[in-house]
C-alpha cells in the first residue's frame, strides 16, 4: 500500500474515491507518465526481471526447435488423448487476452471513466496473450511446416480449407482478433506517440516516435474523425471479443466427445475468459503501479472495480459448471453421466476439486470490502484464479478425452518435460514483451488522462 491513500472505511469517502489522484493538471499527468519512458533511468529490477523472463523465452525456443526435429511425440499426448497441454494453454492464453479488449471496448462504450488508466496496458496484454496463444495451434500440428494448408490460398492442388471445421473458424477468429486488437491499440497510441515525439530530447527518439505518430498534430479535424473511428472500433471489438471465445468453445462443443458436446460452453467460456483476463490485469497492474508509483492513476477504485468484475464473472462461471453438471445428469445420456462421475471419482478428480476451489470458493472472499481493498490479497487471488482457469481448460480437454465412448480405448495423459518447457516458455515470452512495453511506450493513455483531468476539473467547478 502506498502512502497518501485516504483511509477506506467511511462509505461516503468510498463513493468519492476518485479514478485519478487529486491535484493533477494536463502538464503533470503528461510529465509523470511520459517520464517513465523518457527520463526515468531503467532500474536494476527491470533488468533482472527482463533477463529472467527472456531466458524462459529462450527455453521456449529450444522446446519448439526440438519439437520440429523430433515431432509432437515428445509431448505426453497419445491416442485417445490427442490434445494435451498445447490446446489447454492455447485456450488459456486466448482467454486472458479478452480482458484487454473488454476493458478498452465495452467499458468505453459504457463510458466507464475508470477504464482510462488501465486500458492501455490491458490492450498490450491482450496482444501479447494472443501472440502466446497463436504459437500453440501452429506447433501442435504434426507437420507445422504444412500449417499453411489451413489458410485459403490458391494451391496447386485446387484444394481449399474445410470450412465446417471449428479449427478453421479458430484461424479466422484468432487472426481477426489479433489484427483488430493491434489496430485498436495503435490508434489509441497515436496521440501519445506524438507527445513522446514532442517531449523527447534525443534526436533518434524524436525520429522514431515521430515516424510512429505519423505526424499527429492534434488538429481538431483529426480529433473529429479519430473519435468516430475509435468509437466504431470499440463497437466492433465488443461483438468480436464475445465471438472469439465462443468460437474457441466450438472446438469442443461442436465435437461429440462427452464432456465437450454441450451448449453451455459459449457463454461460460466467454465469462471464463473475462474472469481470467481480469485476474491477469490485476496480476500485472498491482506490481506495475507499485513499481512506477502510479497509485494516483491506478487507484483503489480501479482495483475494487476489477475485483467486482472478477466476482461477477466468477459467479457466471460457477453457474456454468453447475449447469454443465446438471445438463449431463438431466440429459440421462449415459456417456455424459459417466463422465460427470469420472470428474468426481475418476483418476483426475483432484484436478476437478482444485478447480472448484480456485474458481468458485476462493473468489467468494471478494464479497468482502476489506478483501477487495487489500492489495496483497487481491494479488494472490488473481493468481489463484489464473491457475483455476488453467485447470478448467485441463479438466475439459484432458479428462473428457481419457474416458470417452469405447472403454477399451480409455487411456491417461501426463505432460512431459517438453510440455512444461513450452508452457513456461510462453509465460516467459509474455512477461518479456510486457517488460519491453512498459519501457518504451506509455503504459497509461496520456491523452485520455488529460480528458479525465479536464472532466474532473469541470466536476470541481
Amino acid at each position: 500500500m502506498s502512502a497518501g491513500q485516504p483511509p477506506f472505511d467511511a462509505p461516503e469517502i468510498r463513493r468519492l474515491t476518485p479514478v485519478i489522484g487529486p491535484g493533477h493538471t494536463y502538464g503533470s499527468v503528461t510529465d509523470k507518465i511520459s517520464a517513465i519512458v523518457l527520463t526515468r533511468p531503467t532500474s536494476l529490477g527491470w533488468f533482472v526481471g527482463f533477463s529472467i523472463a527472456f531466458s524462459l523465452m529462450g527455453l521456449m525456443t529450444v522446446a519448439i526447435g526440438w519439437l520440429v526435429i523430433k515431432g509432437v511425440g515428445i509431448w505426453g499426448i497419445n491416442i485417445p488423448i490427442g490434445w494435451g497441454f498445447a490446446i489447454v494453454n492455447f485456450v488459456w492464453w486466448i482467454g486472458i487476452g479478452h480482458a484487454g479488449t473488454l476493458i478498452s471496448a465495452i467499458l468505453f462504450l459504457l463510458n466507464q471513466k475508470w477504464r482510462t488508466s488501465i486500458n492501455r496496458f490491458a490492450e498490450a496484454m491482450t496482444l501479447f496473450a494472443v501472440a502466446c496463444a497463436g504459437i500453440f495451434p501452429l506447433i501442435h500440428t504434426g507437420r507445422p511446416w504444412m500449417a499453411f494448408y489451413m489458410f485459403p490460398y490458391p494451391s496447386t492442388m485446387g484444394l481449399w480449407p474445410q470450412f465446417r471445421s471449428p479449427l478453421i473458424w479458430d484461424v479466422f477468429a484468432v487472426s481477426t482478433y489479433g489484427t483488430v486488437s493491434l489496430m485498436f491499440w495503435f490508434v489509441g497510441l497515436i496521440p501519445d506517440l506524438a507527445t513522446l515525439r514532442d517531449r523527447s530530447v534525443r534526436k533518434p527518439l524524436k525520429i522514431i516516435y515521430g515516424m510512429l505518430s505519423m505526424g499527429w498534430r492534434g488538429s481538431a479535424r483529426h480529433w473529429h474523425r479519430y473519435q468516430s473511428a475509435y468509437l466504431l472500433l470499440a463497437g466492433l471489438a465488443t461483438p468480436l471479443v464475445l465471438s472469439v471465445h465462443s468460437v474457441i468453445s466450438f472446438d469442443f462443443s461442436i465435437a461429440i466427445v462427452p464432456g465437450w458436446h454441450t451448449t453451455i460452453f459459449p457463454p461460460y467460456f466467454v465469462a471464463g475468459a473475462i474472469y481470467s483476463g481480469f485476474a491477469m490485469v490485476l496480476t500485472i497492474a498491482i506490481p506495475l503501479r507499485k513499481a512506477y508509483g502510479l497509485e494516483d492513476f491506478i487507484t483503489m477504485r480501479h482495483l475494487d472495480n476489477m475485483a467486482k468484475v472478477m466476482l461477477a464473472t466468477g459467479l457466471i462461471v460457477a453457474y456454468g459448471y453447475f449447469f454443465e453438471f446438471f445438463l449431463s445428469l438431466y440429459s440421462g445420456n449415459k456417456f455424459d453421466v459417466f463422465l460427470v462421475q469420472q470428474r468426481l471419482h475418476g483418476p483426475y478428480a483432484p484436478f476437478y476439486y482444485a478447480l472448484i476451489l480456485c474458481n468458485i470458493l476462493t473468489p467468494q472472499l471478494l464479497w468482502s470490502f476489506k478483501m477487495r481493498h487489500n492489495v496483497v490479497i487481491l494479488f494472490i487471488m488473481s493468481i489463484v484464479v489464473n491457475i483455476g482457469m488453467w485447470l478448467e481448460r485441463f479438466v475439459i480437454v484432458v479428462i473428457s478425452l481419457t474416458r470417452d465412448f469405447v472403454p477399451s480405448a480409455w487411456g491417461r495423459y501426463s505432460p512431459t518435460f517438453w510440455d512444461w518447457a513450452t508452457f513456461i516458455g510462453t509465460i516467459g515470452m509474455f512477461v518479456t514483451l510486457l517488460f519491453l512495453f512498459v519501457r518504451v511506450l506509455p503504459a497509461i493513455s496520456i491523452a485520455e488522462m488529460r480528458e479525465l483531468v479536464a472532466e474532473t476539473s469541470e466536476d470541481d467547478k
Partner: protein
Amino acid sequence: MLHRSHIYGVMGEFGTPEELIHAVEKVREAGYRRLDAYAPFPVEGLSQALGLKRNLVPAITLLGGLAGGLGGFSFQYWAAAITYPMNIGGRPLNSWPAFIPVTFELTILGASLAAVFGMLALNGLPQPHHPVFNVHRFSHASSDRFFVCIESRDPKFDLADTARFLESLHAHHVSEVSDD
C-alpha cells in the same frame, strides 16, 4: 496546396479548452474560414465551434463490413460447394450454418480495417512534416497547450491584422507560422 507563400499562417496559444473554444468562436465570427485548432486531447464542443460537418468514417466502415461479410460467405460457399464439392461426413455441400462464424469474423475484420485506414486516409496521415511544427511552442500542443491557427490561404488573411486580432483574444502567445 494550390498557392504557396512563405507564411502558412498565424498561430495563437491558449491555456485551457474553454479559452480555445471561445477564441475559435470569435475567429469564425470575425469571418475567418481557413483555420484549424490544435489540442492535446479531443475537446468537447470544439468541432461545433469550428463548424465541422459529420465525417465519412462510419460510411466507409459500413462498406468494409459488408464487403467482408458478403465476400466471406460467398467464398466459403464457392470453395465448399462449387469449385471442389466434397462429401464431408455426409453434411450437405452448402452447410451454411457452419459457414456463419467465418462470415462473422470477416465482417468485423473488413469493418475494422476500413475504419482505421479510412480515418488515416481522411486525415491525410502519415504526414510527418507540417508547417505548424515550425512554431517553437507548438510542442506543447501534445501536452498542455491549445492553439488556433489562421491560415494564409484565408482570403481575409493579413499577417499583421490577424496577429493583432489573435492577441485581442488574450492569446498567451501569437506567432507566425512560416512555411518552409
